[in-house]
C-alpha cells in the first residue's frame, strides 16, 4: 500500500485509555416539548472496543440512527434532547463537554459517513478543497503537503487519476465515487472511531460490493474502529464482528456476529433473520413477523415486542426485560430466553 507510510505517521500514539473506546450508558433520547415528549431511544447501553467493528441493526424507527447521531453530538435540539445517560469516549463523557468542544472531536476523533453522499457534499466546492478543508480543521500542514495528502487519500479510496480529479465537483462523480470521496473525507484525520450510517443503502449492488471492499481496506490499513448502522443483515455480516439489535428504541440483543446468526436469542432477532429472503434458498414462503412496529411512546409498560411475540408469557406484558446475559458472549432483553416461565 503506497499511502500507508505517510498515513500511519499521522496515526495518534496508541490510546492510553485502558477501557473501551466508546461506552454508551443508559442513553435515552426524546423529542418534543417536555411533559409530552416522546422517547425514541430508551436506556441504550453498549461498548465498543478499540479496533472492533460493531454493527447496529434495526428497522425504521428502531432508534439506530438517533443513537449514532447522539454519539456525534448531532441530535437536533430543539426539538430533540438527551434525557438520560452518558457517552464515554476514551473515558470522557461527551455529553458533559461544552458544546464548543464537539467540533474539535468530530472529524478528528470520531468521523461519520452518511447514506446520501450528495447531500453531505458541498456542490460548489471542488473535491480536493473539501477534503483539504477537513484536514485543515484539525491538522497544521502546508498547502503543498495538504495537497499531497488529499491525493493519497483519493488513491486510498480508489479514485482513479486522483491528481486530475482534485479539481472536479461532486456532480461530476457517480454515486459510488461520491461515497468514496465521503470516506476519504471521514478518514482524512485518522479518526479513532468511524460511524457509517447506511453507507451502501443508496448504491447499486455491484457498487455496494466495491464500497464494502473499501471499508475492509480502511480497517486493514488504518486500524479504524467502526460502528456500522444498517438495516441490511448481509452488510452487517460482511463487516462486523459484533451486532447490536435495536427494536422500538431499545437494544434487544447484543452478541458476536456468528452467535447471533447461528442462535439468536431474542424472538425479534429470530423473526428478522427468518424473514430475510436469501439467495441460497427459494423456499417460496417467507416468514412474516405479525403486526407492526409500535409507534414511539405507545408502549408504556412491558416488553416492546410483546404484542408481536410468538413466545410471550404473562410477565412480558407487565415488566420490561433489561438486557440479560444469556452467555458471556450474548445478551438479550427477553424474559423467556433468560429462562423465565409463566
Amino acid at each position, binding site marked *: 500500500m503506497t499511502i500507508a507510510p505517510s498515513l500511519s505517521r499521522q496515526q495518534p500514539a496508541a490510546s492510553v485509555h485502558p477501557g473501551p473506546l466508546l461506552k454508551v450508558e443508559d442513553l435515552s433520547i426524546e423529542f418534543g416539548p417536555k411533559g409530552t415528549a416522546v422517547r425514541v431511544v430508551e436506556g441504550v447501553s453498549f461498548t465498543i472496543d478499540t479496533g472492533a467493528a460493531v454493527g447496529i441493526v434495526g*428497522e*425504521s424507527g428502531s432508534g439506530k440512527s438517533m443513537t449514532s447521531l447522539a454519539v456525534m453530538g448531532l441530535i437536533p435540539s430543539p426539538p430533540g434532547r438527551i434525557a438520560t445517560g452518558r457517552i464515554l469516549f476514551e473515558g470522557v463523557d461527551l455529553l458533559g463537554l461544552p458544546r464548543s468542544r464537539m467540533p474539535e472531536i468530530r472529524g478528528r476523533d470520531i468521523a461519520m459517513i452518511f447514506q446520501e453522499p450528495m447531500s453531505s457534499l458541498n456542490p460548489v466546492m471542488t473535491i480536493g478543497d473539501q477534503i483539504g478543508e477537513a484536514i485543515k480543521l484539525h491538522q497544521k500542514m502546508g498547502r503543498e503537503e495538504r495537497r499531497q495528502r488529499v491525493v493519497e487519500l483519493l488513491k486510498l479510496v480508489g479514485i482513479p487519476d486522483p491528481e486530475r480529479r482534485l479539481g472536479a465537483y461532486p456532480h461530476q462523480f*457517480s454515486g*459510488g*465515487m461520491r461515497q468514496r470521496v465521503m470516506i476519504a473525507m471521514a478518514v482524512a484525520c485518522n479518526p479513532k472511531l468511524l460511524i457509517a450510517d447506511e453507507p451502501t443503502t443508496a448504491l*447499486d*449492488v*455491484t*457498487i*455496494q*460490493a*466495491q464500497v*464494502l*471492499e473499501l471499508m475492509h481496506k480502511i480497517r486493514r490499513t488504518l486500524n479504524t474502529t467502526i460502528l456500522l448502522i444498517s*438495516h*441490511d*443483515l*448481509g*452488510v*452487517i*455480516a*460482511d463487516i462486523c464482528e459484533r451486532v447490536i439489535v435495536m427494536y422500538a428504541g431499545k437494544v434487544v440483543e447484543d452478541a458476536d*456476529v*456468528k452467535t447471533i*446468526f*447461528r442462535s439468536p436469542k431474542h424472538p425479534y432477532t429470530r*423473526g*428478522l*433473520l427468518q*424473514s*430475510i*429472503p*436469501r*439467495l*441460497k*434458498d*427459494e*423456499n*417460496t*414462503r*417467507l*416468514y*412474516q*413477523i405479525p403486526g*407492526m*412496529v409500535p409507534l414511539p411512546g405507545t408502549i408504556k409498560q412491558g416488553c416492546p415486542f410483546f404484542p408481536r411475540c410468538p413466545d410471550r408469557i404473562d410477565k412480558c406484558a407487565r415488566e420490561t426485560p433489561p438486557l440479560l446475559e444469556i452467555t458471556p458472549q450474548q445478551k438479550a432483553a427477553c424474559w423467556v430466553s433468560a429462562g423465565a416461565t409463566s
Partner: protein
Amino acid sequence: MGLGGGDVMNIAVTGDDLVVVRDVGKTFSEAGGLVFGRAQPSVRAVDGASFEVKRGETLALVGESGCGKSTLGRLLLRLIDASEGEIAIDGVDILRLSSNDMRQMRARVQMIFQDPYGSLSPRRSVAKIIAEPLEIFGLVQSRKQRRDRVAELMIQVGLSPTFMDRYPRQFSGGQRQRIGIARAIAVDPQFIVADEPVSALDVSVQAQIVNLMQDLQKSRGFSYLFIAHDLSVVRHIADRVAVMYLGRIVEIGPKRRIYDFPSHPYTQALLSAVPEPDPETRKSRIILKGDVPSPANDPTGCSFHTRCPIAQPICRAERPPLLETASGHLAACHFAKPHPIPL
C-alpha cells in the same frame, strides 16, 4: 370489450403466452434538443427487448439503476410509447390500439409502484383511491355496491375495512403498499407490472407484502412483471428472470438456471455481489471495475465490455446476440458459459 376488432392486428400467440414482446426499443430525445444552448444526446433507454410473460407466471426484471427496467415496464403498459417493436397482450397488439381501445385495455393491465407515498393521492380517502378504477370502468353502480367492493378488496389485502374513510398519511408504508395493491387488483387484471414494490419497505414488512403478492397471484391467476434490484427477493417470487444491462436484456431464463448456472459475466457478478446474511460463508466476490457507463455513451460491441472481467477484442467490436445456452435459457455473451456461483 371490442378489442382486437377493426384494423388492429392480432399477433399469433401460443396458449401459454399472455404478453409477447418483440424487438421493443425506446429512444428518449430532448424536445428541441437544446439545454443551455447545447444539443442533448438522445438516450437509448431500451434496445431490442424480446421476451414473453406466460399466463400466471412471474417474470422478474432485474438490473441496476438506469438499466432501463422501469422504462421497459412502462412500455408494456403503454404508459410511455415505444419507439419501435411490437407488444401483444392476450393477442392484441397494444401499440396499434386507438387511445379509446387502449383505455379499455387498461382494465386488464395494472401497475404497482415502488413508492406508496408518492403514488397515492394524499387528499383522497382510501375508499376513493381503491374505487377509482372500479368507477372508471363502470364496474360499480351504486354507492353501496362501491363500498362493499372496496371493503372486500381491503380484506383481501389484509386491511380492516373500518379504515376506508381514512387518508393515506394515516397508514404506515406497508399498509400504503397494501392500498396500492388493492387498487391494482380491483379491476381483476390479467397482467400486473410491479415496479420495485418492496424496495422502500423494512425487512419484516417486505416479507408480508411479498407473501401477499404471491397469495393473490395464486388465487387470481394473473401474471406479474416484477421489476427489482434485490436478487434475494426475486429468488423467492420469480418463475423466470431477465437481467438487463444498459437497456438490453443480457440473460433470461428459468429462475433455477439463472441462480444456479448464470451464463453472462454480468449476472455472475451481480449474484456474487449480494452480501449474504451469513457471517460464516465468505464468498469470493467478483468485484466489477468502475461504474455503469452513461446510456448516452453506449460502448461499442458488447456494452458490458468496459467492466467485464473476461472481455476479449471481439467484445469491443461485435455486439453478441441473445442466444440459447440451454432450453429456455438465453445469454448475450460471446463467451457465455454456465458458471455456478459459490453461494
